[in-house]
């Protein structure tokens, strides 16, 4: 335990015990004895009292250890906090780079064991796949198909891309293609697997060309039906922090209620958007106005209690609740409107879950500041739809 020698014995003991206990990493059983102390140091890199120079030295020793340290490093990264995960994964990456630079291959079985164990962090599995591809491209290509439904975004994306490529130019596939049925089956399989927008839209377009109907909103998990109420006052941007009555009902909105709005009584109204990415233009729903607040509420049915993400894109200031629990507050106007702009983890309960958002429009007068809009989806960590809206 070369690295740990530089620490006081008590500190060493406490650090080691803390890491083993709190990070759930069974040092003795998962690492060769010589690397476990160094891995513990990397795992503790984020602690304010850690000697970061000792961590950097431990990183070098681990790299010097070679492929024997690969599996312990990747395994340790499973529950590491993000900075420690970077220390661990970059050491693994450097080990393989050194092996390849020396003209040596890392045992394929070792790489496969890393790739196939979905408990390993997806970034580490993806790099392991790249390492395999660097030393045996044909074999790496051959096994890619089995990752079509992988829980890792990068491996899944690569698998979908490879399968699309194997079909040739899918935009040239016509409805009278003699292999249409087989192609359709394959395309639907790929569409179901795809999570990234470029791949999803590409496949959707081809399926439609072949006469198939595609529900993009359902695929992404975009919520297309909401109940809206407003406008409430947001002059001088005071509305963002003003708790209007609907907020008090975020856990279970009373959609029959009437509230005092900016210009008089307001009531909820249910609207379904035809946009297949679930985009709502509140200027059309509630009337174009500056200095206003609107609330939107929607039920999502989950068949089981499960972890999910709520992802919203909007150029307006927004607050988000799930079953009354505040998930996020983003007080920004007209900065960006990218897909999945704000990602918020949430726990869905079995049955009906209520999502409420508060979406604020400010009083900027520029033409590009007229947007009062959003799109929101409920999905898993990869972007696959979770839950459904009740009929």
């Amino acid at each position, binding site marked *: 335990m070369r690295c740990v020698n530089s620490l006081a014995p008590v500190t060493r003991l406490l650090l080691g015990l803390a890491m083993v206990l709190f990070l759930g990493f069974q040092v003795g059983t998962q690492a060769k004895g010589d690397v476990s102390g160094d891995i513990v140091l990397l795992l503790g890199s984020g602690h304010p009292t850690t000697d*970061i120079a000792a961590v950097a030295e431990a*990183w070098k020793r681990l790299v010097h250890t070679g492929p024997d340290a690969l599996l312990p490093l990747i395994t340790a990264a499973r529950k590491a906090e993000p900075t420690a995960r*970077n*220390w661990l994964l970059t050491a693994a990456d450097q080990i393989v*780079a050194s092996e390849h630079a020396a003209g040596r291959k890392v045992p394929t079985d070792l790489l496969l064991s890393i790739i196939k164990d979905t408990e390993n962090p997806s970034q580490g599995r993806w790099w392991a796949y790249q390492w395999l591809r660097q030393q045996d491209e044909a074999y790496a290509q051959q096994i890619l198909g089995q990752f079509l439904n992988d829980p890792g975004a990068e491996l899944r994306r690569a698998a979908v891309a490879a399968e699309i490529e194997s079909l040739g130019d899918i935009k040239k596939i016509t409805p009278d293609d003699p292999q249409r049925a087989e192609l359709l089956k394959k395309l639907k399989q790929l569409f179901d697997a795809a999570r*990234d927008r470029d791949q999803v839209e590409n496949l959707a377009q081809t399926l439609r060309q072949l006469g198939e109907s595609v529900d993009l909103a359902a695929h992404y998990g975009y919520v297309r039906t909401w109940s809206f109420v407003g406008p409430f006052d947001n002059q001088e941007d005071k509305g963002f922090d003003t708790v209007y009555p609907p907020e008090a009902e975020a856990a279970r909105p009373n959609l029959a209620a009437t509230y005092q709005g900016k210009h008089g009584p307001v009531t909820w109204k249910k609207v379904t958007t035809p946009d297949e990415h679930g985009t709502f233009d509140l200027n059309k729903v509630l009337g174009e106005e500056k200095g206003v607040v609107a609330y939107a509420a929607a039920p999502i049915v989950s068949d089981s209690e499960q972890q999910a993400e709520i992802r919203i894109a909007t150029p307006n200031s927004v607050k988000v609740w799930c079953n009354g629990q505040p998930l996020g507050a983003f007080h*920004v106007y007209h900065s*960006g409107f990218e897909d*999945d702009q704000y990602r918020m983890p949430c726990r869905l309960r079995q049955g009906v879950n209520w999502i409420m958002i508060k979406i604020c429009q400010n009083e900027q007068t520029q033409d590009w500041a007229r947007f009062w809009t959003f799109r929101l989806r409920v999905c898993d960590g990869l972007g696959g739809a979770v839950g459904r809206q009740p009929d």
Partner: protein
Amino acid sequence: MLAGRMTSLLRYFVAMAGCLGWGLAGADDWPGFRGGPATGVLRGGEDIPPVLSPEKQLLWKAQLPGPGPSSPIIVGNKVIVTAAVGYRQDELHVLCFDSKTGRQNWDFRFWATGSTVCNPFGGVAASTPVSDGKHIVALFSSNDLVCLDLDGRPLWFRALGFERPLLRNDVGMASSPVIVDGTVVVQAESLLDAIVCGLDIKTGRTSWLIERPKQALWCTPIAVRAGSQTVVLLQSRKDFQAISPQTGQTVFAYDHWCDTVSSAAASEGFVALPAAGIHALRLVASPAGFEQLWISDRLRCGNTSPLVWKNKIYLIKEPNIFACADGASGEILKQLRLRGSFWASPLLVGRHIYAVNYEGNVFVLALDEAGLPTLAGQWDLESAVLASPGSDGEQLYFRTQRSLYSFRLGDSQKE
């Protein structure tokens, strides 16, 4: 009379002290955004020949693994550049190439921990890395920082975007870090959260942190000598502050809002501050710190940063007017219409200025004895150029979204 002479001497002393060394970085290094003293000017002789025959002077071209508006830096014989890879641009790379051969020495990659949402036009690898000749510090739009040694081995990571999840800009963040006397100064300002912090170059730990007004800003701080001390100049929508790199405390300030994209340039105690035009300031040894010389609203920089050299200011007015102004008065001495749209800041090497537009057209402007520019040549790179070029006095380096180019200055014969 004596007091006046003393004041003049003091001003002269302050002015002479205005050129700041950059730690251990070599004299011919290009260690950060727009080089060392952040003027976009390569120190050295004025007899450096230009690149006018790119096909003959191209030394090498290297493919990059991903896009990024960040500029290359040069440390000794190493050219360092960053890139972001993947559909989400969350695999962050710091790459090192041999300056003479273009051979890749190393590629250090790690994973973003903060938000990588950004305008697709820019990218996550937007900030230019910085070096003190011993360390390389790279910052990304996700507010992830890594410090490497010159062999590409990590010395520390900081996950500022993970530590402060609201420290994000959905357009992307682009301010580049600077290193001053062992402190890495990071200006990370967005509408949701905004800080300036000083990190210990040896450990990455926070030496000081100042909460800033929540406003979006993409400018890079610059370090200058002000009397006996080094200060870091920070732009904001409120004012132009000089802070201590040791404490982050404000030493003095200029009470005027600043541009939030175009960064100030300084040379020999003279500062050109972009603020819907140029505010020309002189660093003075008084509590005020700045003396305002003149203001010109005709010198609007757009998205690029100005050059300051030998009492002249050179800049690209939107959309593509190259202007030369008198540093003493702000009078525009000459203007040239180029073409296209400019995101990369111009670079002065020897007596030639290189201005490259987004479309990849490189305009070479020769300066005459009076410092006035004329178009000496024009040639083409590939398109999509956002990064400002760099130079070590022997070669020019251009970074496009996909490639890194090196051209030999002068000798048109390939080695």
